[in-house]
């Protein structure tokens, strides 16, 4: 089945790349909502079947080790999501520019 509607897609921002980023963000927001709803179903089923209640979830206090593992996970998670910012900083530190890359392209092409 076709994925795209025939007809030029309009863009609205000065830089059409922003339109794309927003579309991806909203798609992600949608999937977060799907996950949240699935989790809610799991919690309600668990409660209905006497496994654990949502009050148990609220009352849950992670042990020191669990808290540490979660902290580690959050750090990695944020580093992964914000990777592009750190890469930009690294490029500044190393003096990398579009011109410096083009120079490499020219160099390896002629050598």
């Amino acid at each position, binding site marked *: *089945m076709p994925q795209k509607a*025939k007809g030029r897609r309009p863009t609205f921002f000065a830089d059409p790349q922003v339109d794309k980023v927003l579309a991806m963000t909203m798609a992600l927001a*949608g999937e977060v909502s*799907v996950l949240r709803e699935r989790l809610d179903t799991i919690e309600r089923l668990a409660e209905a079947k006497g496994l654990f209640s949502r009050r148990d979830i609220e009352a849950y206090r992670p042990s020191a080790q669990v808290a540490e593992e979660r902290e580690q996970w959050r750090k990695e998670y944020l580093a992964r999501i914000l990777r592009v910012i750190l890469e930009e900083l690294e490029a500044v530190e190393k003096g990398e520019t579009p011109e410096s890359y083009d120079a490499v392209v020219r160099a390896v092409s002629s050598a």
Partner: protein
Amino acid sequence: MYEQIQHPLLPQVTHDELARQNFVQALKEHLATKVSPGNKVVYEKRARPRFVREAQHAPRDRHDVRRVMKDEPYYQTWSALQRISQEMMWEAVASSVERQLPDLITRAKQRGRTLGSLTLNPDLQIPSYHTAVDIHCQPGGYHSETCPDDVAAGAIYDRAVYIYAMGRMGPLNDDLGQSLVAYVKTTYPDFRPRTILDMGCSVGHSTLPYVDAYPDAEVYAIDVAAPMLRYAHARAEALGKRVHFSQQNAEHTTFADASFDLVVSHILLHETSASAMRNILRECYRLLVPGGMMFHVEVPQYQGMDPYDAFMLDWDTYNNNEPFWGALHDMDLVALAGEAGFAAAQVIQMTIPSAFKVARSRTGLFQGGDFGGGGRWFVFGATK
């Protein structure tokens, strides 16, 4: 909000598919009620004063308003999100339909042919106003088929209309038909049509109210798109309604002169073209018996409308693959009806209340992301 009736043809949803569709519906509702109204604030506080400063006169029409609004960051963000919500809606429904398409085709075939009928015409040429762009961004439009006996476009449309209207067009998406039926029955209590034609019926959601309203009438419904009609026929049979569906272009049908007492359409006209409009009105005149009536449900004409309101109503023309939307709403409908043979004194143009109370407590707008949010529909009609 109404729950959509899970009739036997409506696609089934998995847990996550439903959650995905729920999200799109919530997004659309948020945009319509919380974000879209802010455009008017931006217009009044920033864009309009800027226009007056530069042009030395107030915005004269929707084109003037668009020239200043398109540069407003708030309007840009709303527009981008509105377009995205439309694309997400089709994706969330189409992916679900595609997963179960063979089953849907089987279910459509199994539906008995006991009440109404289905007549397809594989040689019918799909008009260019349907093939040029996919109307309101449904990938493949109404007409595209990817396998034999395809009903995908119809199944997608039935579910997507519910999401698009945010559940406020009734459990069977039949607000347009119900509202027009209520108007005709109230205004013409002695009118007893024996034959009724619904033009551009798609999945027949607006058609079925006529079966209940006039149980002695034979109800016919036409559309150019085979996947819509296959689905519409099976849907009507599943709901126990007798309708004769056939694949025909409303511009030139195969029905004999004076075949119908009542000819109706529901948001069909804006999905055609200037020349098709004229042909359709001429065809209505030809098909009606003397004293017969035609009614077309639409959103209001731009004439006399505040330029800002017309601008918002016109968003779909440029941003939602509704290329004829703007031109139609600028047309002189009395003159067009006159060209088709109807006497000017017999032409009516008015808004009628929505048959559904929920729809009447909406934003009060006719579009701008809140389809039918006016709680009223525009009716253009004439008696032959």
